[in-house]
């Protein structure tokens, strides 16, 4: 049974008059994990789960099952119905205006039949390439190779929509005998775009960079961030600034700031599900088609993202960013952030004007401190270097930044030309691969509040 058939059958099981919305998701995935240049844990997943959402008096009750028999769908529909009825009785009428009619959205290039085969041999080849490159550099390789095919179908009395995507991700962290580490990763819709040998080579070069690691005191320092580091900060900005629910409730970082300059003029940020290097989606969790949405234009805050719930609260329309049918408790989020590139050729060009600063490959354990200020904290990892007299000179002990993402973007001096698709490859729950496409960035200063030494 595929996801479309499951969604349609589940909707039928709900029965007429339920004002139901069915979502079926089938994940087939393979993840190969490795440590110290050896395979460790390999995980294959095949699951098909169906969620039925039922609307009663403005309340949405939801029930999920991965039992695809009709009686299980009927039972799930009953649970969702009981939940929505109970809510209506207990707290009175609710605010949800109604499920939109699912729309399929325009076709996209987010599926690759070869990737969908989930061939372990392909993964093995990339692992062996990574191990070989690591061995030649005298380092150990740690990381994952993973690929997946995900079917998503939504169905309601207003129609049906079906989306089929693949995604692939590989990361390599190389550890040198000195204990220094380096990182490289790649994210794409096609497994064929992953090159284990190349990734390991890049990661190894960082791990084996010459020079005694320097120590820099916390404080304000000029910074060049690779795309991987910046992508994580932009992901947090998506949650703190562009969440339409938080914005409508006055808790968002752009509350009262739309139409004003919030970053440097060189910042052009959008949610762009058709951008060539992103992971495209046809529609959101409420069946609303994905479409490009400008968020910051020439440094001016332009908009936030909405699902049906937050749009109702804000007096706006859904922008196609729902995470759940009926709305997620945490609100809507952008899933295809794209930061436009600038004029710098590469990271080396970004470093050139810096007399003394910090080069950051990636950030780790990033967490929001105060959302209304887009204030976050994170630690650099797997490739932190000192920039001296315009070039990277030697390794640097990892540093903790605590700064406003909007502030970092506000102090942006230059961007590299080409956005790269970045991701941390975290696949919690049912797989929903996403990433942020962004270039590398030079910012006038970042506030560091600690050092990991």
């Amino acid at each position, binding site marked *: 049974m595929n996801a479309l058939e499951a969604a349609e059958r589940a909707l039928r099981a709900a029965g007429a008059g339920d004002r139901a919305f069915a979502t079926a998701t089938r994940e087939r995935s*393979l*993840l*190969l994990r490795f*440590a*110290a240049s050896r*395979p*460790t*844990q*390999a*995980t*294959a*997943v*095949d699951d*098909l789960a169906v969620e039925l959402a039922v609307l009663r008096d403005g309340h*949405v009750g939801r*029930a*999920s*099952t*991965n039992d695809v028999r009709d009686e299980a769908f009927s039972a799930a529909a009953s649970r*969702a119905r*009981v*939940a929505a009825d*109970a*809510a209506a*009785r*207990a*707290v009175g009428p609710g*605010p949800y205006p109604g499920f939109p009619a699912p729309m399929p959205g325009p076709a996209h290039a987010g599926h690759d039949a070869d990737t969908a085969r989930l061939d*372990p*041999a392909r*993964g*093995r080849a990339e*692992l*062996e390439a990574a191990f070989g490159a690591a061995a030649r550099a005298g380092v150990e390789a*740690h990381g994952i190779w*993973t690929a997946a095919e995900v079917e998503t179908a939504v169905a309601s009395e207003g129609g049906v929509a079906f989306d089929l995507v693949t995604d692939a991700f590989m*990361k390599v962290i190389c550890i040198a005998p000195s204990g220094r580490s380096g990182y490289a990763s790649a994210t794409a819709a096609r497994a064929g775009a992953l090159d284990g040998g190349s990734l390991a080579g890049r990661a190894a070069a960082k791990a084996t960079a010459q020079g005694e690691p320097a120590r820099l005191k916390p404080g304000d320092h000029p910074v060049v961030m690779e795309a991987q580091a910046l992508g994580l900060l932009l992901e947090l900005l998506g949650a703190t600034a562009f969440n339409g629910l938080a914005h409508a*409730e*006055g*808790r968002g970082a752009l509350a009262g700031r739309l139409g004003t300059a919030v970053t440097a003029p060189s910042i052009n940020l959008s949610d762009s599900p058709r951008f060539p290097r992103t992971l495209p989606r046809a529609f959101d969790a409420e069946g609303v088609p994905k479409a490009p949405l400008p968020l910051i234009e020439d440094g001016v805050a332009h908009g936030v993202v909405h699902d049906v719930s937050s749009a109702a609260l804000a007096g706006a329309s859904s922008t196609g960013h729902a995470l759940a049918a009926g709305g997620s*408790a945490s609100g809507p989020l952008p899933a295809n952030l794209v930061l436009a590139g600038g004029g710098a050729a590469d990271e080396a060009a970004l470093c050139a004007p810096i007399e003394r600063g910090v080069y950051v490959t990636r950030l*780790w*354990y990033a*967490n929001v*401190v105060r*959302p*209304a200020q887009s204030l976050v904290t*994170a*630690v650099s*990892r797997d490739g932190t270097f000192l920039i001296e007299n315009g070039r990277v000179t030697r390794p640097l002990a*990892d540093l*903790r930044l*605590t700064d406003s993402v909007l502030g970092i973007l506000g102090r942006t001096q230059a961007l590299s030309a080409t956005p790269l698709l970045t991701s941390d490859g*975290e696949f*919690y*729950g049912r*797989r929903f691969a996403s990433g942020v496409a962004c270039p590398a960035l030079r910012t006038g200063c970042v506030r560091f*509040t*600690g050092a*990991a030494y």
Partner: protein
Amino acid sequence: MRELLPELMYAAARHADYADARHVRVRSERISIRNAALDGLDHAELDGIGVRVRVGGSWGFAGVRGDGREQAHEALRRALDVVRRQPTAPAAPLASEQPAGGRWESPVGRDPFEVPLEDKLTVLAAAAEELRSEPAVALARASFRAWRTDKLFASTDGALCEQRLTECGGGITAVASKDGETQVRSFPSSHAGHVAQAGYEHFLGLGLAAAAPRVAEEAAALLRAPACPPGRTSLILAGEQLAMQVHESVGHAVELDRVLGREISYAGTSFIEPGAPGSLRLGSELMNVTADAGTAGGLGSYRWDDEGVEGQRLPIVREGVLSAFLSSRETAAETGLPRSGGCMRAESFDRQPIVRMTNVNLDPGEAGTLEQLVAATDRGVLIDTNRSWSIDSRRLQFQFEGEAAWEIADGERRRLLRNPSYAGMTPEFWARCDAVCSPAEWRLVSLIDCGKGEPGQVARVSHGSAPARFRDVEVGMA
């Protein structure tokens, strides 16, 4: 199923050095009220079979939905396929273990899934209404969570054991906003409140509506409160913030898979070396940490872990010195331990078990009550609820921020402070611990969203502690 899994293991033994299988059925319920409206009401029932095989030194795993013979054998076939088609890894032994057998259920009074939804909604709505009685509260939230997990485990070693775990709880949050400032207060804690391995009686016993007026008042007061001033001072940690400190800087640091470099790819490593037990000083002599899979009500409690190893009570730190790690059969054998610590858990049928915390508890001391500890402190701050957390990949340099702090001056709890952050390095920080309150102050706190593993897994854990004081700590840097 009790016949199917042993049959499956019989088949697996012909192809793998070792194999185990779990049939897992999880029922869950999440109810959330936002202001005066329903925020979410989700019910889920998911089940499937996960089969793990070991060939040489690597693991293959496959999870498939359903509970039939066909699905079980398909999971085995896939697990063998993926492990065989990986690069080879040298064979390595597993620590030996007597085959587990029997059935166990966590204690539960009233089944939370049998309680009518209206009853739960009424409790939550009443609590949210109390929060909203404070005019500055812009967002009032109240939530209920419950899980029931049924697991049947079998292995090629002959294990066959069955467990049922029931967990439930909830909490409230008030968000106050004014003039661009936003502050939040939660009860009993910020991470979905307090969830325990217990029945509905635990949720009712939280007293959410009764606590709501104080919580709302504090959220509003934080809008007017001064920021926690930067500097070095005495820090008293209590409740959730101390639990988070234990979790991040001790619990994760002593996971043996991290220590051995198996988690470098994602969660990171540890500043602790494999040979450190018995010699590494992690803190002052007042620091005693115990990992206890039998703590009543703890979310890290079970009879057997997901390798069929019996849950244990392990001294992790004694008088400030590291004494043991959290381990699995594989990591125990690699470090020469005679037996696994029984710390392997998987989130669901489609994830393979990894080293996880049981209830990693800070043992109580002799400093009396929290108020006595405050009275014995000339200057400092007290933080009890977590808002932000981050620690480096070696579990060494951390920075936390609480929802609120109270200034301590001349032995008295005085004004409220907003945005109280603090930072430190794990061993130096714990070396500054000079007081831990007495057993009467010891409480369990739950954290229901601990992420680890690839593909990602979320674990629910608990930590018990009594308030503790740390001298000369850097605060107010964020």
